[in-house]
């Protein structure tokens, strides 16, 4: 039995009002995404004169469609929306509407605020739930429901779902995610727009219950009902990691956020404290969010905070240590004497083992086998909760062979391993191989470090919960 947001994320049929055969227009891209993405439900393009769009029969209006419709996407301009909603109401079978059109309450113009209220009243009356207006709606990578006009590319399904308060940030993060060695597909993705009906909290609660969602990410400018938000977040973080890119870290950023969505950006230090209190991982940039998304969706949460840095190159290893050292959450791994001795035996003589503690510079002479053996040794150590493996594969090292070895070793241990292969396209195949096996890869050491810090923070919070429960 479908309820609430299921009608969006699991819509059996979608009508696109404002579809067009004119390529490059949003109303064309949406139809194209559904068709090319392989959406299996019924697709009904609606346009007053077009006969066919992307090979599909086009209808002049909603009332001329004989089949049943669950979801409509409204991509016509502002003042035409009430009429569409009236038709939708008249049909009686429509359960959800994504209103892409802008020019409503976000303009702060009384006439346009009233327009939004009118549309919403019509929808409420007919039992139709609304995303937006001024939004791009939802994506479900599992069944290829996609109401956005972000051009589609095939992606690997990852158990990470995303909510955005900004369409452009949300869309660009889809693009960045697609640009990963193995294109990263958000399980579910939603952009809320004006939140006249469906809001962040409802989506958050939906993701909380979604069995396909292992962790949740969000881009946030501000919330209206902070108290309620904290209550929901507190419940969510008991079960799932919640990563939020909350902007407004500086006074200037805050002002920009306030004028963008009109939401109260609020005193940043209060957000900072409140997020910590309810176990939200606050991230600072899109990169950090995406890197953490990869780590959380593919790797286990470490059981402690002791991290080992295993590097084939000095400089990158130090950059990684710098980043880890700036975090108060991470400690360096403790290696047993036996482990240190064995590492010295298997690694080239110029290797620097456990100096400083938990840091191993294997040296550039370390080949595939040495990487794998060293990784195996440290992963087996009790004093190691997670490993960052860094390599700048030289010409004489076969990076795909290295990747295969790493996959083999890592599979035996339930500890997070984040791999940083620094050689651009030269190591693309190796990174694809790793990510196909759910081993996240990073192009820069500080990015791997930030992702690890986020994993450690999550464990810190889980331990705090456990302590409070006792």
């Amino acid at each position: 039995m479908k309820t609430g947001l299921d009608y969006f994320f699991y819509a059996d049929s979608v009508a696109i009002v404002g579809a067009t055969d004119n390529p490059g227009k949003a109303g064309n891209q949406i139809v194209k995404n559904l068709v090319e993405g392989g959406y299996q439900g019924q697709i009904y393009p609606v346009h007053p004169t077009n006969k066919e769009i992307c090979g599909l029969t086009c209808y002049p209006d909603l009332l001329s469609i004989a089949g049943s419709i669950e979801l409509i996407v409204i991509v016509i301009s502002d003042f035409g929306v009430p009429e569409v909603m009236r038709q939708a109401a008249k049909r009686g079978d429509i359960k959800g509407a994504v209103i892409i059109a802008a020019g409503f309450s976000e303009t702060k113009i009384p006439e346009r605020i009233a327009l939004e209220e009118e549309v919403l009243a019509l929808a409420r009356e007919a039992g139709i739930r609304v995303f937006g207006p001024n939004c791009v709606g939802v994506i479900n990578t599992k069944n290829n429901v996609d109401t956005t006009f972000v051009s589609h590319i095939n992606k690997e399904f990852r158990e990470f779902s995303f909510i955005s308060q900004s369409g452009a940030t949300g869309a660009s993060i889809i693009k960045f995610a697609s640009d990963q060695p193995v294109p990263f597909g958000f399980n579910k993705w939603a952009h809320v727009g004006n939140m006249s009906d469906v809001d962040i909290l409802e989506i958050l609660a939906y993701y909380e219950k979604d069995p396909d969602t292992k962790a949740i990410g969000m881009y946030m400018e501000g919330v209206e009902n902070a108290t309620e938000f904290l209550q929901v977040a507190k419940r969510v973080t008991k079960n799932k990691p919640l990563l939020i890119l909350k902007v407004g870290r500086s006074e200037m950023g805050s002002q920009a956020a306030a004028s963008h969505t009109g939401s109260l950006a609020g005193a940043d230090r209060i957000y900072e404290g409140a997020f910590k209190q309810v176990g939200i991982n606050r991230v600072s940039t899109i990169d950090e969010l995406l890197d953490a998304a990869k780590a959380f969706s593919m790797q286990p949460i470490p059981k402690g905070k002791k991290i080992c840095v295993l590097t084939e190159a000095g400089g990158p290893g130090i950059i990684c240590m710098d980043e880890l050292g700036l975090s108060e959450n991470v400690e360096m791994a403790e290696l047993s004497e036996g482990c240190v001795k064995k590492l010295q035996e298997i690694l080239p003589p110029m290797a620097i083992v456990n100096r400083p503690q938990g840091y191993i510079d294997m040296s550039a002479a370390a080949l595939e086998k040495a990487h794998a053996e060293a990784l195996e040794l440290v992963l087996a150590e009790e004093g190691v909760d997670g490993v960052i493996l860094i390599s700048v594969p030289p010409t004489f090292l076969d990076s795909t062979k290295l990747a295969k070895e790493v996959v083999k070793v890592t599979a035996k241990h339930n500890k997070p391993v984040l791999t940083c292969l620094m050689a651009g396209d030269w190591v693309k195949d190796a990174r694809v191989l790793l990510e196909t096996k759910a081993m996240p890869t990073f192009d820069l050491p500080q990015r791997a470090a930030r992702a690890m810090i986020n994993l450690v923070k999550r464990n810190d919070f889980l331990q705090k919960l456990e302590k409070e429960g006792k």
Partner: protein
Amino acid sequence: MAHPLIQKAQQERRSLLEHEAIELLKAHDLPVSPALLASSSDDAVKKAKEIGYPVVLKIVSPQIIHKSDVGGVKVNLKSAEEVDVAYREIIDNALVHDSDAEIKGVLVTPMAQAGTEVIIGMIRDPQFGPCVMFGLGGIFVEVFKDVTFRVAPISPDDAREMIEETKSYTVLKGVRGEKPKDVEALVNIITKVSQLAIQEPDIKEIDLNPVLVYEKGVALVDARVLL
């Protein structure tokens, strides 16, 4: 029901006077230093004797917020004579500053020993509701803005975390051979202020500045409660 002192202040359309603020905090189990209101110089001498020398005298008037700025505070008074003179000076200064100021008396408190100064405050945020702030006093707050917030209610673990996450926590841990300061006493104040803020929704702001923290215990020597 709001505390009677809050009700009274509301009726008179003002915030709590310092001695009322102290009484309210005491009623909520906060470790405030004793404070007695004196209505004459003789009375001040009597109260000073009760509290024990040395003492501090502070003007109490709804019109005078920044007491030190108008010469309304005299510290480290060691004898009846000093208290007598100080009392008169404070009243004179207050009246010079504002001849219409309604003077409720002079508050006599013990002179606290020097300790590490911290600030604990509460503000009611329009979105999050009551939030408690913690920071080390002096330049740490003014220049470095090294403060941290949590939303009430605040658990002891959260309170500890907020103290530990300030950069100036290093100072509380003890620097240059000093022993560590009583962090648990601060945890106690933070959690109690958070409870007070929830119980008394009419309080807009609480400002405990400074709170002096020692190796063992604290001295809560100044309190402002705004309605």
